[in-house]
């Protein structure tokens, strides 16, 4: 049984002017122990997908109009409140993009960390001392020096990199089965980014946690994941093993993205992808990428492509690859 | 693709209408806001049209009819009559006039002054200008409002105009402080620095760049303040320092009617409910305005 299996998820938002059909049938699945990357640009729906998995979308204006999110065999969308709370506390953790916003500025690190631990381990009935010990242990695991002192600090006293490490500590201290990291290093400096990701990668391997790394950086995905999903306008357009994807990108969008990344070889930068992301109020018919696709065909305008199998776990939603 | 001239000529009117529609969408999300808006509109209309919609317009001035004095609510007098035989419903409508006028005048004076001083003080943070303005503000804030108003009113003749001056004096610092807070935090935004680097004048930066970012809090406060000013004015009238008889004023009516509680309860109770009604309306309208003016983040 797969750990997480999102089937044909459809989510939209009610706004001024109509209904934003953001997620248009998202398929995503992973097994336990896998490290999967989710790549896509701003507005493609990756955070919406992550928030759907955690069931933390603001319900008006968000509306889930179809699909299932099967976590360990149960549909998250139909779970009751107390079941979801259990899932949050013990099964799925999320690391958000901006560590400053994810930490409450008026509580100490110790308060927040210990609260997280207490919630996740409520069935273990730990004493205060035990909770504190686990908190210190968690901070040591993320290589924060002087863990005891940091417990007494407020978030504002620490640097961005340290704050993100604390968020990672919080996520991992809860011993969750699945870790979702949403652009965990975007707001950090480049060498700190490297440190933090290296740490995250190591810890995930040590604890054998399953993880989803959401990012718009192809370079990061290449170094840290085993399998990748590429997302565009609310649909998964391609998925493959990481090596395979970078050696052989099939979908025109993926190819466009790869070409647009500045290369260290100094060959100049490809012109990027024509057009702009679709207006979700009035999305394109058929394949949502067709207005920008250099290989567009007639059928692309009329029908929505399904995931076509291209061998070795490599699938892509593009009519160019229909058998 | 339109030419630039075509786009520019798309009338100002259609752009404003678009904004109004969008504003209404957010505003109407909360049904309470609509209730607030409705109340305010009703009060406003009653006030403006008082001479035409009140059943006994002449009762608003010098009128005496001891025959019908102190009559309880009836079909002829929905809110009853007071000790002079004047119809209370009529006097409440005319009372709204006074309340709204007071509110508009006081806020019309204090808001522009307070906002301008706040913009200047906030932008010129850490200079003598800021210190001067904010310390003066502090002085006015330190004096308890009612005492300040009473002192002013006691020195000057008790009438509507002077009570408006008294209220204004203690009201302006709050606008100043609020805008000061916003302006000083926006001072370091890139778009302000960009305007400075371009060489825009200080006036432009204050009123065209910073001020528009204060609309939300200012207009929300204006709406809430209408309620407070009306309440404060009523309090002043209650102690005899506002409108003088026979001018119908809600606060005076409550004060006068208080003597006759609980037997002729209607003389005090209806004006009191009217005050509550108006203040409540402006309060929830204020919430709706705040929702509407929040800057949308993508």
């Amino acid at each position, binding site marked *: 049984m797969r750990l997480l299996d999102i089937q044909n998820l459809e989510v939209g938002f009610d706004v001024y002017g109509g209904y934003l059909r953001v997620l248009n049938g998202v398929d995503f699945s992973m097994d336990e122990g896998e490290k999967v990357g989710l790549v896509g640009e701003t507005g493609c729906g990756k955070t919406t997908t992550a928030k759907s998995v955690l069931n933390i979308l603001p319900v008006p204006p968000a509306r889930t109009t179809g699909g299932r999110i099967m976590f360990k065999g149960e549909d998250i969308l139909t779970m009751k409140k107390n079941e979801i709370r259990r899932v949050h506390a013990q099964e799925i953790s999320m690391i958000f993009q901006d560590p400053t916003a994810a930490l409450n500025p008026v509580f100490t690190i110790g308060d927040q960390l210990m609260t997280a631990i207490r919630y996740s381990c409520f069935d273990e009935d730990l004493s205060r001392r035990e909770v504190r010990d686990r908190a210190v242990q968690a901070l040591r695991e993320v290589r924060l020096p002087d863990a005891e002192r940091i417990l007494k600090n407020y978030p504002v006293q620490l640097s961005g990199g340290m704050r993100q490490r604390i968020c990672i500590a919080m996520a991992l201290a809860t011993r969750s089965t699945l870790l979702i990291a949403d652009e965990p290093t975007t707001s950090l400096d480049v060498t700190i980014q490297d440190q933090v990701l290296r740490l995250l990668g190591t810890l995930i391997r040590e604890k054998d946690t399953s993880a989803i790394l959401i990012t718009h950086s192809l370079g990061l995905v290449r170094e840290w994941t085993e399998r990748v999903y590429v997302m565009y306008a609310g649909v998964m357009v391609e998925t493959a093993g990481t090596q395979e994807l970078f050696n052989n990108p099939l979908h025109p969008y993926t190819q466009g993205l790869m070409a*647009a990344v500045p*290369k260290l070889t100094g060959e100049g930068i490809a012109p990027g992808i024509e057009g702009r992301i679709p207006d979700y109020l009035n999305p394109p018919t058929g394949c949502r990428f067709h207005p920008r696709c250099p290989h567009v065909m007639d059928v692309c305008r009329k029908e929505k492509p399904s995931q076509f199998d291209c061998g070795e776990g490599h699938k892509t939603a593009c009519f160019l690859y229909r058998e | 693709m339109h030419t630039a001239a075509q786009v520019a000529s798309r009338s100002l009117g259609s752009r404003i209408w678009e904004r109004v529609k969008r504003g209404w969408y957010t505003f109407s999300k909360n049904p309470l806001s609509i209730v607030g808006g409705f109340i305010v509109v009703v009060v406003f209309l009653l006030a403006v049209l008082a001479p035409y919609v009140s059943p006994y317009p002449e009762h608003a001035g010098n009128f005496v009819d001891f025959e019908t004095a102190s009559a309880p609510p009836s079909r002829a007098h929905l809110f009853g009559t007071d000790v002079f035989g004047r119809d209370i419903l009529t006097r409440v409508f005319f009372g709204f006039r006074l309340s709204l006028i007071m509110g508009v005048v006081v806020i019309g004076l204090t808001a522009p002054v307070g906002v301008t001083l706040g913009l200047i003080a906030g932008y010129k943070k850490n200079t003598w200008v800021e210190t001067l303005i904010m310390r003066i503000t502090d002085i006015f804030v330190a004096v308890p409002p009612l005492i300040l108003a009473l002192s002013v009113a006691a020195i000057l003749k008790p009438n509507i105009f002077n009570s408006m001056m008294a209220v204004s004096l203690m009201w302006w610092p709050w606008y100043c402080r609020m805008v000061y807070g916003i302006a000083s935090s926006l001072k370091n935004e890139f778009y302000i620095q960009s305007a400075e680097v371009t060489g825009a004048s200080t006036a*432009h930066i204050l009123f065209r760049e910073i001020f528009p970012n204060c609309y939300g809090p200012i207009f929300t406060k204006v709406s809430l303040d209408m309620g407070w000013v009306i309440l404060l004015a009523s309090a002043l009238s209650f102690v005899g320092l506002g409108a003088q008889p026979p001018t119908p004023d809600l606060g005076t009516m409550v004060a006068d009617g208080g003597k006759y509680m609980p037997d002729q309860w209607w003389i005090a109770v209806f004006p009191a409910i009217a005050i509550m009604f108006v203040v409540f309306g402006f309060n929830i309208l204020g919430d709706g305005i705040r929702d509407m003016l929040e800057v949308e983040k993508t």
Partner: protein
Amino acid sequence: MSFMNDVILSAQDLKKHFHTRQGVVRAADGVSFTIRERETLGLVGESGSGKSTVAYTIMGIYPATSGTLLFKGDDIGSASKKRSKPLKRDIQIVFQDPGSSLNPRRTIRQILELPLNVHKTVPKRDRLERVAKLMEMVELPFDYMYKAPPAIGGGERQMVAIARALATDPSFIVLDEPTSALDVSVQAKIINKLMELQRELGLTYLFITHDLSLMRNMASRVAIMYLGKICEIAPTAEFFSNPLHPYTQMLLSSIPVVSEQEEELKPKKIVSAGEIPSPVDIPPGCSFHLRCPRKMDICTRVDPRIVTLSEGHEVRCHLFPGASG
């Protein structure tokens, strides 16, 4: 002064210090470089390196503490309030975050018209046309004229920022991380547009970014800064193929790349250890020695001097003869 020597901007021992309660922050501490016309000088560094400080001093957002800053031969070390109007027109800046560099309460037209109104370079009745021309230059649809920044995408906002910088027909533009907050395909569009504009209008750029792969494709020369000082400057190809300073090597080794080919080009992996020290607390000697894998005894005591090794390639490190002077 004429432009005989072709250098448009030169900084000589430029310093900008801030006095704070925690002490003196030596944000820029003796920076020297020259930029020639139509060139792009890339400035690289982590947070706290002082690259933004240098940019803002050039812009006149701060006055320089000491040192010389010459633009077309004139001293521009003073703050923008004291600068002449023609100078303000000639040097422009594109800020990092389009979300906060454009006033969310103003329309695109108002934003683009401001420089025109202030400098009166164009008579009033022609200003709308100039705004339209600017929007055309950055490929923004005219429909956007009455939109406010929050209503358009991040890439488009940055295009507005670029159009605004072009409004006064400048010759020199400072670009402070113009694409860091943007997606890669949007970045590609903007970078290509910037390069096209540079060719067409003969612009000179000071380009600041932490993205070394981007720098590789954009800059003609690259300078790398650490804690207020320049560690190394070299022409781009030389900088990447032959990095000399240990800090340069460290940064280059940690760039995430997307192909095997590129992996080959990176120096051997050097793991950066420790946090970036605070600029208030700069260690004695070479400011980098606490993190340097090739630290020597002299590094803890003496601050190295800049040495010119080959054509245009300067380094500040005791590993090279002449630095310990």
